[in-house]
């Protein structure tokens, strides 16, 4: 559901005049409580991941990450993201173009339907593909006859990931392109530019940061998805385990240090994602003001 919440524009708030703010003591207490809450709920888990990852030392850490199963999981995670993110990006661009550049009936319905995956529990996102392609599913017997494996194999993992990350790029682009209107593109067309060229030369430069923003968020979710992927994966070590599933297996086998070592890798991804995200936000608000 992450994409439903849009980020506020950063703004430097000037110091409030005295009659419009609280006494210093109240301010400090409020800041203190807020930071304590955030520290306990958000910061502490991050610190735990790092401390537990290195509990058995640097060598054990490296060993956990260079384990063949861990490497296989990393490979599968990368492959999944490499398929899901580009496809959802193309879809997001098409959906945003159709919705923001044209008027047609059923547009509101379409926007709502695009958001649908955000409202679906990750477990259900996996379940639906089992019901379609599993042995007892609708296409199960046919697939079995033709020797095609979707569920408990890579295609199922990719499909479930695509479902879960489906709205990210579209959600980011639709409001952005809505505010930019159609004048630029119409001008380009009246000057004789053709379809693809209009998009590449006029639209793309206007939306590139927003597009990248959506792709970064999409990628973070694609690499980190657990529930949906766990349902369709079948947990075959070295074959159908992604990094989050590998973490689960290690944890359930009481290999805590190794589990946290792999977790630290995904946490690094999350922190990088947030850093790039805030860089892009600054850039977007600057180009917005310009």
């Amino acid at each position, binding site marked *: 559901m992450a994409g439903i919440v849009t980020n506020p524009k950063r703004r430097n708030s000037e110091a409030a005049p005295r009659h419009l703010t609280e006494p210093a003591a109240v301010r400090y207490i409020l800041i203190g409580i807020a930071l304590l809450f955030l520290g306990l*709920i*958000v910061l502490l888990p991050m610190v735990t*991941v790092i401390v537990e990852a290195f509990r058995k030392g640097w060598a054990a850490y490296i060993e956990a990450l260079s384990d063949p199963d861990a490497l296989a999981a990393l490979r599968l995670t990368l492959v999944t993201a490499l398929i899901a993110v580009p496809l959802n990006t193309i879809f997001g661009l*098409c959906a945003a173009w159709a919705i923001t550049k044209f008027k047609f009936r059923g547009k509101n319905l379409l926007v709502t*339907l695009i958001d649908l995956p955000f409202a*679906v529990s990750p477990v259900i996102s996996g*379940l639906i593909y089992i019901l379609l392609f599993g042995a007892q599913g609708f296409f199960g017997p046919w697939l079995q006859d033709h020797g095609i494996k979707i569920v408990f194999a890579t295609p199922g993992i990719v499909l479930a990931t695509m479902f879960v990350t489906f709205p990210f790029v579209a959600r980011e682009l639709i409001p952005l392109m809505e505010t930019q209107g159609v004048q630029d593109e119409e001008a380009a067309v009246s000057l004789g530019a053709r379809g693809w060229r209009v998009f590449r030369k006029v639209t793309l430069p206007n939306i590139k940061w927003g597009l990248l923003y959506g792709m970064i968020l999409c990628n973070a979710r694609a690499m980190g998805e*657990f529930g949906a992927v766990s*349902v369709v994966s079948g947990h075959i070590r070295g074959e159908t385990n992604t990094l989050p599933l590998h973490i689960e297996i290690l944890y359930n086998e009481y290999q805590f240090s190794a589990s946290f070592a792999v*977790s630290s890798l995904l946490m690094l991804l999350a922190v990088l994602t947030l850093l790039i995200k805030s860089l892009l936000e600054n850039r977007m608000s600057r180009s917005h003001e310009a």
Partner: protein
Amino acid sequence: MTALIRKKRRVLPGFRLTTGITVTYLSLIVLIPLAALVVKSADLSPDQWWSTISNPRVVASYRLSLLTALCAGLVNMVFGLLLAWVLVRYKFPGKAIVDGLIDLPFALPTAVAGIALSAIYAPNGWVGSLLEPFGIKVAYTPIGITIALIFIGVPFVVRTVQPVLQDFDKGTEEAAVLLGAYRWRTFRKVILPELVPPLLTGFALAFARGIGEYGSVVFISGNMPLKTEIAPLLIVTKLEQFEYGQAAAVAVVLLVLSFLLLLLINVLQRWSNRRLRTA
């Protein structure tokens, strides 16, 4: 008017191509699979359907998922408001980092959050061992589930309240003060009413996310049937027992709940936007 629209449609290229791709891809990835869920749950006769979802274990899992998500949503509403307030109104060192940290639960994979939280709150963990002497158990109880859902829900309330608070008209506040109102009264009577729509939206978003959440919860919840088994986990259990029809039935109820919430969120957001525009 229609002529105008039709003309516009022709001006920019790609209408058929982009709507075609959008609708096809949407149907293949989202709509058809979701329809399969509903069709599959209809494998069960109405009696079987009812006995599946009225089974005590299933009812207990719904109740647990709803109650823990509700508690987590309420906690996030209070602390989300506080965090948004502090971030918009006050200056303090490290503010940019704090603001960035708010989004961490969106970016951190749920499995990582799950094992970290259960390590912290387990009886031998950092916080768990502090609470143990007082007889407070967090991990493997509904409290643990609630804490995981609080973690997941932090960004929702903060990020919906923050922009409204930023755009809040200082003039209204000033007027209240000039008319002799004290700080607390100004907050309660002038500022808080404006924040009600975003607070409710943020709460509903966190609540909806909490009902379906799986990854961050399974590690800390203990997964005891009737006690600490959340609804999404029960779906997984039914699947592992190859009870596909029952799994689908449990899922359909959960899905309907989520969609009703989504509808509510849309109404709330429209209300909130309208208030912003008139303000």
